[in-house]
């Protein structure tokens, strides 16, 4: 009977975990290039139940009665990499990637990857992210944009006053779900091999987050109901234990 308590309690914890991730997705619903988080849940390893020795059925010790599950555990998060919709901002250093690919940026912790295209031309003429990290070019060095009328081609070549200059690099991964690890601040660290991407860069646009508002609200409702059910399950087990303790065997 106590087993049931832990199964229900594990569902309560899992519910809270899912609720936090949904809240995190909502918090970043308007964030350019944001990729939503999903929870992956897994059952605890099912256990084989054996009959305990008892007086009513002598000789049945060790007879297996079947499997039981001990509840559910959040095993972590998974990033959903679907492309978000594009928003026209007209700002010259807002860049969106149309297709599979990531911007390569240089951070104090090493090279990171992002689809967040909110760049500014900083005081040194480099393109910098919101956090001030520099966008890398195909030569692996930060791109430099001289002052002037800037046009950025689909292949990443930066043209200032019609003079071709540095080329922005895009990296592609065979399977982003396994090749990339979330690293905070809308960036990913590479676990797998990065190859050159042939996706197109769109200047003056931003890729919006891929959080779907209606789906998220629906998921939140399902979290609430599952949580309620788990709470009832704990209470029922409590009542049953109460009866066993107080009523069975009352003289």
């Amino acid at each position, binding site marked *: 009977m106590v087993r049931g308590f832990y199964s229900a309690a594990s569902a*309560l*914890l899992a*519910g*809270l*975990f899912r*609720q*936090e991730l*949904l*809240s*995190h997705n*909502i*918090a*970043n*619903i*308007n*964030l*350019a290039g*944001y990729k939503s988080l999903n929870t992956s849940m897994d059952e605890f390893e099912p256990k084989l139940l054996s009959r305990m020795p008892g007086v009513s059925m002598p000789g049945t010790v060790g007879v297996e009665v079947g499997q039981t599950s001990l509840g559910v555990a*959040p095993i*972590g*998060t998974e990033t959903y990499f679907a492309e978000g919709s594009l928003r026209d*901002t*007209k*700002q*010259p250093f807002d860049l969106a990637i149309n297709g599979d690919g990531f911007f390569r940026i240089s951070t104090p912790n090493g090279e990171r990857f992002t689809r967040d295209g*909110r760049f*500014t*031309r*900083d*005081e*040194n*003429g480099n393109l910098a992210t*919101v*956090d001030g990290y520099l966008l890398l070019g195909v030569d692996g060095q930060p791109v430099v944009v001289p*002052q*002037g*009328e800037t046009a950025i081609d689909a292949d990443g070549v930066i043209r200032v*006053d019609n003079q071709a200059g540095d080329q922005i690099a895009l990296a592609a991964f065979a399977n982003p779900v396994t090749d990339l690890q*979330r*690293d*905070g*601040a*809308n960036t990913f660290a590479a676990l797998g091999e990065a190859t050159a991407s042939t996706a197109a860069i769109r200047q003056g646009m931003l890729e919006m987050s891929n959080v779907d*508002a209606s789906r*998220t*609200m629906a998921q*939140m409702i399902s*979290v*609430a109901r599952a*949580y*309620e059910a788990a*709470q009832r399950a*704990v*209470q029922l087990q*409590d*009542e049953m234990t109460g009866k066993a303790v107080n009523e069975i065997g009352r003289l």
Partner: protein
Amino acid sequence: MTTTALTALHVSVSAMLARQFEMDVISNNLANVNTTGYKPSRADFQELFVEGVPDNRSTTPYRGTGPGVTRRSTLPGALAPASSPLEMAIEGDGFFAVTQPDGTTAYTRDGRFLQDGANQLVTVTGQPVVWDGALPQEAEALHVNVDGTVMARANGQWTQVGAIAVFRFDNPGGLLAADDNLLVVSEASGDPAQGVGGQNGFGRIISGATENSAIDYAEEVTSMILAQRAYTMSIKAFQQTDEMMGMANRLRSG
């Protein structure tokens, strides 16, 4: 990743604070729809995502959304005709420089200049424009050329009385807003470079015109609706986390 009900609440709180700040920025843009030379700002937030649970004494949220930067657009506004030749606009890149009361220099694209009682060239709020020259006490006519040279006509003769320089920055979006529609240099903007209008990429000075506010009304209203919707969703998430905490509290009440 470890979760507690409180961390889930913090995620929603960080989002609500972010959306409130975003609404402030949008409201400020909308309030300046008719401000000459105004450039709208945008609040850019950043994801906060830290695996694990921070130190107990930490008060900063570690998941959710956090402050990023506000940056000013550099898109031009439409030029509108003005009645005086001393009212001017910059077509292209650059700013006018103005001396503030404390002696420091500020920058603006609001070129509604006029001649004050002391024959100084000043802004609408009376702050002297940084330029090289002196306005004649009486002139039949004044004109400013695209390169910033100021011409005055006396007895039918045009003579140059000074020149207005144009200043530009590596990152004009990083200038900080000050009072009276002025901007001041910041670490992000870089230092100003002085140049001549219409040369080497510096914008041309257009006399007898002013630059309208560059705000895109539809864009601002769209951003406002998006911020409002996101705010509402975060409130819903907050309420639901709260209800879940309540349910956990009632576990034992039977």
